[in-house]
């Protein structure tokens, strides 16, 4: 793999939501880089901050109740410094976004053509005929049959999989170098999911764009990602190339998650791994020490770092805290 200049660089991003007079960080010091031509998966369970990370990069938070710190560097710009007007030029043009719920992100009163064309009108100076050609080209690219007819249809006339293809077509309309996809297949059936994931892989091959794929589904990660960042309680706890992460997971959270995937039972007493305790709420999140420590109470306190940081344990493989070296599952010998 050739070393590419990074497309997008996120440095020490913090996104805090206001509770009364205090801000609590849902994203707490996340740094990552997205390179051209790669799919970077952000994986984690609900409340880990993965979607907030995406919406912070896109500048979709209001400034009254949210406090964002850090840097999101794109083409020598810190996106966080942009005003709404400038941000609008970036969104849809430089960064395309695909959301989980296609029905919710499409306007029910607009035809498919108008929804895709809207973004072209805003960001390009194509004339009407050129826009029509581009919409047809896009619908073909995302594998929609009979694009001439579908173009005139309304969202409710399409199936869930087709709608998600339209959403992808909108995200691709202006050939953005960066695409952020937040749980793009979660609402879809498994056969449709496979088609959409193939489509995203093909698009990436064709356009060379960098994709940030946000998901809770480790299967989706294994099928599509080049690199993976695992998030827990607002922080990245492990980051590695996809093969390395699945073959050689290090952080206790990553290992626990992989262990709780349903599998064929080996015996009648075979049980799925359950992570001790629950994810703390945003207000109760421990801000000091290893945030995963309360979930693995059998690991001695001394195993954790006082202020856990990401350590490069092997080339391109980073793990937060030192507890992974001493980790074993409960009731198991190290």
């Amino acid at each position, binding site marked *: 793999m050739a070393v590419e200049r990074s497309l997008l660089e996120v440095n020490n991003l913090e996104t805090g939501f206001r509770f009364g007079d205090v801000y609590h960080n849902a994203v707490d010091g996340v740094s990552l880089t997205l390179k051209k031509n790669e799919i970077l998966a952000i994986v984690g369970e*609900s409340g880990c901050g993965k979607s907030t990370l995406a919406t912070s990069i896109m500048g979709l938070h209001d400034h009254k109740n949210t406090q964002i710190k850090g840097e999101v560097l794109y083409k020598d710009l810190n996106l966080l410094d942009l005003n709404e007007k400038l941000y609008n030029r970036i969104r849809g043009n430089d960064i395309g976004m695909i959301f989980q719920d296609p029905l919710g992100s499409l306007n029910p009163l607009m035809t498919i053509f108008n929804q895709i064309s809207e973004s072209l009108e805003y960001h390009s100076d194509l004339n009407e005929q050129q826009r029509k050609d581009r919409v047809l080209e896009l619908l073909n690219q995302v594998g929609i049959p009979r694009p001439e007819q579908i173009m005139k249809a309304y969202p409710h006339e399409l199936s869930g999989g087709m709608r998600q293809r339209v959403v992808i077509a909108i995200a691709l309309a202006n050939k953005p170098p960066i695409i952020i996809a937040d749980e793009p297949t979660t609402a879809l059936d498994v056969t449709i999911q496979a088609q959409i994931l193939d489509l995203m892989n093909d698009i990436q091959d064709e356009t060379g764009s960098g994709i940030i794929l946000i998901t809770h589904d480790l299967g989706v990660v294994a099928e599509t990602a080049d690199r993976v960042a695992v998030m827990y309680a607002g922080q990245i706890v492990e980051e590695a190339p996809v093969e390395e992460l699945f073959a050689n997971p290090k952080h206790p959270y990553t290992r626990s998650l992989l262990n709780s995937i349903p599998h*064929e039972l080996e015996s009648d007493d075979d049980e799925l791994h359950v992570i001790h305790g629950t994810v703390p709420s945003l207000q109760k999140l421990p801000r000091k020490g290893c945030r995963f420590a309360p979930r693995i109470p059998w690991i001695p306190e001394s195993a954790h770092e006082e202020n856990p940081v990401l350590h490069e344990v092997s080339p391109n493989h980073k793990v937060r805290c030192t507890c992974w070296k001493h980790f074993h599952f409960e009731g198991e010998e190290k």
Partner: protein
Amino acid sequence: MLNTIQSYVKAVDGVNLTIEGGKTYGLVGESGSGKTTIGKTIIGLEKATSGQIMYEGQNVTNKARSRKEKYAAYNKDVQMIFQDATSSMNPKKRILDVIAEPMRNYFDYTPDEIKRRVVDLLEIVGMNAEAMYKYPHEFSGGQRQRIGVARAVASDPKLIIADEPTSALDLSVQAQVLNFMRRIQKEYNLSYLFISHDLGVVQHMSDDIAIMHRGRFVEQGSKKEIYSNPQHIYTKRLLSAIPDMDPTTRAAHKVERQRVEAEYDAQETEYYDPDGRVYDLQEFKKDHLVALQPEAPNASLQNEKVKTGGER
């Protein structure tokens, strides 16, 4: 233990299944395949237009919500766990009352007995007694689903219909709920009708499986047979679409998946009749039925249900 026969309904069309005591029957299909309708019909939230539901030898078709004494046992013995625990609980009721409701319906317990029983049930699903006095919104999604499991068990049922019980839950929380469901099953010799679109979860939980498509069963049999030796093109397609957890075999898996997909497109007409209806199930081997095209034209004559048979 339970036998459903329904024919010529749009949502569910001519399916037969038998759930044995203490076993889990997995019902798999994509959205709109009719799997939830089967569960709802058994529990009485939908009416069967034809066919029979037999429970321990008694015909209980469409009697699930009957107040008659003779169906009381059926009502008590068959319970349901819903996908969305939040909307299946009255937000104004304390957990004590949520779990106690089935007991108050079916047993003459004193308030003290009820309380003791609720504490026991909460303990079974790994929760403290203090949870009793809280309201549903005070719990996380996983905890609420565990309360849903406790409520379903409250009337000492024999069969629980679990409709996508963990689909809204995170992986680690799902693991917890599935573990509790299996422990309870062993303890009370419960049967489950486990409805899910998630083939991994169904494989984990089930003994027998039926794969549904367009309101019909395309394949039915023991878990081992279905997963290791799928025969119907739809089953093959579904199984090949499950994401592979090993990124190193990604390319090969994709090639295989697209091969099956192409096979599905090419052979679809051989597996569905000209109206697009799934054929009747035939015995492929022991513990394994497949909906295949009847081989000889005679075969279709023998069975009046098949409108147009193998000859085309």
